[in-house]
């Protein structure tokens, strides 16, 4: 895969992180990505980046009191707007594409959409190599 494209996708992923986290660690994370990419180990960093994004966002939402965590599920409330959701969707699509390009392993993501009262509900399931599973679900 094109190095510039992989870097662009990773930068996009970083741009979704909270601003304070980006300001503090964004440059260093991109530097590590460059170093690891040159050694051929970039695929796992996309998954790591998505998990990091979920952690940061969940912390942010928790601080705002808009997030409830129950039995390993992160349920997003109405605080996440459609633009942010679209942004996340585009980024995840790019990451999925990148992962398919990088390795022959099956994609660790599954994405399903169901409709409830004419409102789309997205469920994204990530499977980490350590068998950890994170489910991000939007509710109408």
């Amino acid at each position: 895969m094109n190095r510039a494209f992989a870097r662009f996708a990773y930068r996009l992923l970083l741009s979704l992180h909270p601003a304070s986290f980006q300001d503090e660690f964004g440059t260093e994370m991109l530097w590590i990505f460059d170093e690891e990419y040159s050694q051929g180990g970039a695929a796992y960093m996309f998954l790591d980046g998505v998990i990091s994004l979920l952690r940061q966002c969940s912390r942010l939402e928790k601080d705002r009191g808009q997030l409830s965590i129950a039995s390993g599920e992160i349920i997003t409330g109405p605080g996440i707007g459609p633009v942010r959701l679209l942004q996340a969707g585009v980024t995840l699509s790019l990451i999925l594409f990148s992962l398919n390009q990088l390795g022959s392993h099956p994609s660790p993501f599954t994405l399903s959409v169901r409709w409830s009262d004419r409102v789309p509900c997205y469920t994204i399931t990530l499977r980490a190599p350590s068998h950890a599973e994170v489910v991000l679900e939007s509710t109408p």
Partner: protein
Amino acid sequence: MKSEPAKSSPLSSATLHILLALAGGNLHGYGIIKEVTRNSDGHYRLGPGTLYDNLKKLMDAGLVADAATASSSKRKPVSSKEDDRRFYTLTKDGKNALAAEVDRLQSVVREAKLRLQEARTGKA
């Protein structure tokens, strides 16, 4: 205000590996990743997202600090490329937390050995 870590709460794998890596000396982010991989014989791979997420928590808890601000005896960079990299250092509280965790793990191993021994003698 710094949040005080619970004295008895076990550290996560990532946290333990980061503290162990920093126990050997001040390191920058990529240095920590490399050190963790080396210490675990490549079995534990730390990604940058996990690393900085944990570093942020450790810094908030006062267990890790920015080496440039924490100490006047700043570590000399290995190469000119590392000049502008941020180095992290283990604080006194960090060393104490690591020592407490090692003690906790030792007692777990001791207990596990005892139980295994009992199980063996019970079967015999």
